[in-house]
């Protein structure tokens, strides 16, 4: 298992480096002259040159890249062009807010998805299974901004149950904050429900079919014990892996949700940075998203290999 994890770790580091190159090239090299972009098409060439000198963007791209990476490795993410604040602060605050929203979504969806999947599997082929499977399939397909429109209409406008914005007033208590986060979490819950339920269903069906389940039934264990002790334990393993790989998707979804509900998270931060061509903020934000995804998948691999003895002996991938 040690070798497997070591290999995963090395690949993660290489991935991160590649990611930094992709981000650097697309945010700083491809769009062309940085000074010209900031000052606009009518600025004097001298002013553009001066700004480029001041920002350090007149140097060779390798020097610029080295400088940027050196800063990132030492924890200095530079300064935001549009907000005149250290990027580190902005990204950290955004990440904290997004984590709250994501946590609410996960806490709602994980039990719901697993329950739905297991119920579908226990009723395989019957109406309830079709109902859960088809609605899961539909829920996966609908973009978050589309379901966001519908949930805003239903819960906020027609029934007046929940607030339309996600940002609770400053100084609000825990439950108020939670109340503000439920509506934005719902579209994320819908999409994730489909994935998790599908995996839980497939895992449960496989486990129900397995020889050990047959043995457990034949030796006369009650149905509930068989399901709890033999089926679920084996069925939920692949589900854990799915939950972790969905973090990547989740961050993409957060961009849209945070925008619609006007919530100050990392997603909205990256969106605004892209709109305002604030490349130091954009680069760091995107890089952080990559780091979060890699850490989540790495942790999932560790958890998965700790829970599943078979993978310890399998060669990596």
């Amino acid at each position, binding site marked *: 298992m040690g070798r497997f994890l070591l290999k995963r770790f090395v690949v993660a580091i290489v991935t991160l480096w590649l990611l930094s190159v992709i981000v650097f090239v697309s945010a700083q090299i491809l769009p062309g002259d940085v000074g010209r972009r900031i000052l606009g098409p009518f600025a004097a060439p001298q002013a553009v040159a001066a700004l480029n000198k001041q920002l350090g963007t007149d140097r060779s791209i390798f020097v610029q890249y080295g400088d940027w990476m050196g800063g990132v490795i030492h924890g200095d993410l530079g300064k935001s062009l549009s907000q005149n604040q250290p990027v580190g602060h902005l990204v950290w605050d955004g990440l904290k807010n997004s984590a709250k929203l994501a946590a609410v979504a996960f806490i709602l969806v994980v039990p719901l998805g697993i329950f739905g999947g297991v119920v579908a599997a226990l009723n395989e082929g019957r109406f309830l299974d079709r109902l859960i499977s088809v609605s899961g399939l539909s829920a996966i397909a609908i973009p978050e*901004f589309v379901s966001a*429109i519908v949930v805003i209409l239903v819960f906020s*406008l027609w029934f007046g149950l929940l607030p339309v914005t996600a940002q609770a007033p400053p100084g609000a208590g825990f439950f108020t904050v939670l109340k503000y986060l439920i509506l934005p979490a719902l579209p994320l819950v819908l999409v994730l429900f489909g994935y998790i339920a599908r995996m839980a269903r497939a895992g449960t069906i496989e486990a129900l079919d397995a020889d050990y389940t047959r043995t457990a039934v034949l030796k006369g264990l009650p*149905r509930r014990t068989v399901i709890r002790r033999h089926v679920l334990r084996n069925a939920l393993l692949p589900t854990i892996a799915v939950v972790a790989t969905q973090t990547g998707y989740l961050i993409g979804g957060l961009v*849209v949700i945070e925008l619609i509900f006007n919530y100050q998270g990392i997603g909205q931060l990256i969106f605004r940075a892209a709109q305002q061509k604030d490349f130091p903020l954009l680069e760091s934000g995107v890089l952080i998203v990559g780091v979060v995804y890699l850490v989540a998948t790495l942790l999932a691999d560790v958890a998965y290999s700790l829970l599943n003895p078979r993978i310890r002996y399998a060669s990596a991938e």
Partner: protein
Amino acid sequence: MTVAEPPPVAATPALEVVDHARLARRERIRLIVRSKTFLIGAAVLGFWILMALLGSTIAPHDPYADDILNKLKAPSGTHWFGTDSLGRDVFSRVLAGARGIIVVALLATVLGTAAGTAFGLAAGYFRGLVDEILGILFNAFLSLPVVIIGLLALVAVGPSKLTVTLVVGVVFTPIISRTVRAAVLAERQLEYVQAARLRNERPPYVMFAEILPNVLAPILVEFTVRLGYAIFAIATLSFLGVGIPPPAPDWGVQIADHYGLISGGYWWPSLFPALAIASLVISVNLVADGLTHAFER
């Protein structure tokens, strides 16, 4: 009561071993057509494809025509879905909007499938170093959600139909490549591949002329599944302003322009394009699901 009830007997009897290929194909089609969810999906998808072809012609109003005096009018007999903030007919814009998203989604999926198939064939056929390098490159790419890659592209090259097409196509390439690679790994063990290699055929010939025809089924299934995701991604990207620029009647842009008005009670300019996206994307997924089930047997 036992837990492990035998699964309900499949509606179709097992095939006799008479004429395999043709019978199997006919059976597969019968299976697909018998699925109710597939038929519903196909009907809705057919409607939208029809609208992509004729939508702007049969629309009751000009989808581009402003009418400031009649802006934000609620749904009525003349304007079934009401009018938007510029007084344009929402119903006409929803019908006319089908073409843009369907064309871009098809192009992006074709692009991703073609590139993904080529890379997948190479990775599965050569294995070793080629496979490893492609794997690491693709992993780096997959660690970013498509929305983020879209925003990077927005900064790098600016918004356009081409930008969205390329972003979605490029994001799909590694995913499709993975599926194709797995299928190729299974195929390359078979005798016909060995025979071709012993005949000293060149690798491109073996990959494209020998292996490719035998992995078309999983590629077709992957294509339809990806098409659903493409619509999801393209709608989201155009909502974020990476895609089709206004004033084109695009569903995502239409929602982006009007969602802020919902809390003021003007729900129709956002809700109807939203329902259009939802019905299109669900229909594609139902069709893809039907195909997946039929081909997995």
